[in-house]
Each structure stands twice: as structure tokens, then as C-alpha cells.
């Protein structure tokens, strides 16, 4: 297991895509994607289903490898990393959470620290700390099983598990997509505050333009396997290009409905 890099070159992007292509059984899923994500940034990949967002995300922790081009994490191509070591440094949250149903909440959160060989005491205190961090207070959650939690609580545990080993990078695939709008809004706000404190490098996949605007420091608009453009949230709101405008128009529908009432 390689030692953690102690001095970081601030100018070096944490994640970099260089002309990445990916095709699977003849279908081109990513087409010449290039982008960089700097330390502490939150890049949101926004697009319709099938635009290649999830595929791009899975390139970063090498669940998939480019057919052409390369993806660099901390300056090294993902194909040169030991995939296990790479993934242990990257938190991963997916829509269906994927908590282990046969593990308690505490065991789920402790998973990666334990695999990384942390001493038992440190694992225990880390579990408590992570539960507090994601807003599950009071110690009553540790011994519960995932089936005994609400959707929102499960998703919080998913975030706690992803952050438990203190990874530099966090990947989130539609993390809050399955939650009801109220819970989703709450968790989005909490996550934004959390991210403000932890300063992880985050990549989030979503098709929810509201989520993109709330969480993103930059928004990458994807269409048909390409990154159409990368915007700041401010530029996105005022963008003239038809796709960004269409997303904004969709938000405005709600505003108008509100005004009519």
C-alpha cells in the first residue's frame, strides 16, 4: 500500500481526464472527455440518463478503464494504480446506497477503516464521529441494521461510510435521488455545509439541476458521451446555450407555478 502523499502540488489537479473515450460492446459511451478537478472543488456532472455521467464517474475509481485516453488521479493514470489502493482513497456513494444488510450501521461505517487495519479503538471513535458528522446523533443508530432505517438515514450512513477512512476524493452517483423532496433538500444543505468544512474533492452525478446549483462549484453539462461545457453556477444560470437554458427553464416552471397560486 503506497504511503499517502504528504506534500501536494497545489496546481496539480486531483482528477484529470485526458481525451477519454470509452466504448462497451460497440456502443460509444464516452467521447473525447477532457476535464480537470482541483483540490477542494465540487464538480457536478449534469445530464440526462444515458449521457455518460455514471460512466465518467466510474472511470475515476477504475470500476471502468478508458478504451482510449487516460484518467489521472493525483497525477497518476488510474491504470497504473493498484485498483484496490486507488478505491480505498476514494469515497463512493451511490443512489441505492448499497449498505451491507447483514452489518449493523456501526459495522458498515467501520468497514474500510478495518480493512485498512486501523486499531479497534480508533475505529470505534471514528464511527461515533462519523455518525455525528452526518447528523445521526444520540448513539442509538450504531447497533441498528440498515433495514431498520428510513431512506434518509440510510443515505446518511452511506455518506458516513464513504468518509470514514478520510478519503481525499468523494464520488457520488445520484446520491440523494431516491429521497423524498423534503429529506433531499435537508440532506443537500447539510452536505453542502459538511463539504465547506471538510474540503474534499467531490464529483457528483445528477440529473437534478437544482442539486447541481446547490452543491456544485462547477457544473459539467454532459450530452451523448461528451462534456458539452463546464460552467460556474453563476454562468450556468445566465448561459445562453440551449441545453443549459432548457435546464433553467425547467426550474422556472416551478417559480411560475408558485406565482400563479
Amino acid at each position, binding site marked *: 500500500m503506497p504511503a499517502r502523499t504528504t506534500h501536494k502540488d497545489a496546481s496539480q489537479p486531483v482528477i484529470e481526464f485526458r481525451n477519454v473515450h470509452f466504448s462497451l460492446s460497440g456502443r460509444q459511451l464516452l467521447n473525447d472527455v477532457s476535464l480537470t478537478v482541483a483540490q477542494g472543488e465540487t464538480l457536478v456532472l449534469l445530464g440526462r440518463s444515458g449521457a455518460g455521467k455514471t460512466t465518467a464517474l466510474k472511470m475515476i*475509481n477504475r*470500476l471502468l478503464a478508458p478504451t482510449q485516453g487516460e484518467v489521472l488521479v493525483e497525477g497518476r493514470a488510474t491504470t497504473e494504480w493498484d*485498483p*484496490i*489502493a*486507488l*478505491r*480505498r482513497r*476514494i*469515497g*463512493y456513494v*451511490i*443512489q*441505492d*446506497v*448499497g*449498505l*451491507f*444488510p*447483514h452489518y449493523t450501521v456501526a459495522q458498515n461505517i467501520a*468497514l*474500510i477503516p478495518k*480493512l485498512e487495519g486501523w486499531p479497534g479503538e480508533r475505529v470505534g471513535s471514528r464511527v461515533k464521529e462519523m455518525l455525528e458528522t452526518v447528523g445521526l446523533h444520540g448513539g442509538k443508530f450504531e447497533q441498528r*441494521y440498515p*433495514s431498520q432505517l428510513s431512506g434518509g438515514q440510510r443515505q446518511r450512513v*452511506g455518506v458516513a*461510510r*464513504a468518509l470514514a477512512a478520510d478519503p481525499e476524493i468523494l*464520488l457520488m452517483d445520484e446520491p440523494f435521488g431516491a429521497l423524498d423532496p423534503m429529506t433531499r433538500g435537508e440532506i443537500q444543505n447539510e452536505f453542502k455545509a459538511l463539504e465547506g468544512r471538510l474540503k474534499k474533492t467531490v464529483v457528483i452525478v445528477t440529473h437534478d439541476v437544482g442539486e447541481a446549483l446547490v452543491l456544485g462549484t462547477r457544473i459539467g453539462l454532459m450530452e451523448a458521451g461528451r462534456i458539452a461545457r463546464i460552467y460556474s453556477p453563476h454562468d450556468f444560470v445566465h448561459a445562453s446555450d440551449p441545453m443549459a437554458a432548457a435546464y433553467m427553464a425547467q426550474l422556472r416552471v416551478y417559480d411560475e407555478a408558485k406565482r400563479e397560486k
Partner: protein
Amino acid sequence: MSLLEFFQRHQREILQATWEHVWLVGLTMIFAIAIGVPLGILVTRKPWLSKPILGSANVAETIPSLALFGFLLPVPWLGGRADRLAIVALTLYALLPIIRNTSAGIANVDRAVREAARGMGMTDGQILFQVELPLSVPTMLAGIRIATVLTIGIATIAAAVGAGGLGEFIFRGLAMVNDQLILAGAIPAALLALGADFVLGLVQHGLRPVR
């Protein structure tokens, strides 16, 4: 002579035969689990092996048991020892439910759980032993339960090649047209099957991963 008196008079022989029966079934199950579970795992890892492995196990299942014992009789290492032959034949029968349920149990693990495990950096071995196998235990045990009950029944036929067990009474009873002798084999065999089913059912219930 009533059936009860018959059982009392032949108590020792019946117990002896029951013990032989348990021994045959026990060894068979040990071999069947030792072979069937790894094959079941293999099937999920190498999908192209699924057809040949499950196909062969299926074919073995369709051979009438008496015929299978007969087929194995001329095989050099087996033909000389009846118990050996019986255990090999019985193991072939017990394999199918174990292979099938092991692979089904693993295949039924939630995709999200598997993806999360891989994405977080668990190795293939860790995913298998910490996630897939524990979550498949109830399905695997169901297969083992079916195979055990099946084997207890088929093992009575092993007496035809001289492997002993409760089938001895049944075959003797058939030859002598003696119902009491037949029942002296059939009743303990049925009780064994019910008992095994009950105990394994308890184990299955107790080992459910999620309460």
C-alpha cells in the same frame, strides 16, 4: 407378532442399520458440500462454466438411482467397496441442489451492495467471504436441507449393492414379502428425514443474516 414387538426384538439390528445409514448420509453430505459449494461459487465467477456444470449435475440427477449404482459397479476403485460406491453415487445426487442454491444465493445479492463493495476497494476475496457468502447462507442452507432429505431416501437403495443401511430391511422384506421387515427400514428412514429437515430448518432460521 405386533410391529412394536418386532421393533423391540430387533432393536439392536435396527439401531445398527440406522447408524450405518447416518454414516453413509453424513459422509455423503460432507463430500457434497465440499464439492458443491465451490462449484456453485465457480459458476457465478465463470458464467461460461454454468451450463456444463449445472448440466452435468442435472443429468446425474435424472439417472435412476438403482441404475446409477449398477453403472458404478464395474468402476475399478469403486466396485470393490460397496460403501465407497454408495457414497460416490449419493454425492452425485446431492450435488445439484447445493450447486444450484449456492450460485442462486450469490446471484441474488443486491447489485448495489456488490457495486458499493467493489467501489470502496474490497478485493474479490473480501467481497466473496464478507458479503456474498454470508448473504447467501440461507439459500445455501435450503439447498443443503433439500439434498440431505433426498440423500436419506436414496441411501436406502445403497443396500442393493451391499452398502448396508436401513435399505437392508426394505430389500429383505421385499424378498420375503414381510411388511414388518420393510417397515423396520422405512420408518426409521422416514424419521431420520423428518429429523434432519427439522434440525436444518432450525439452523437455517438461526443463521438468517438479517433479523
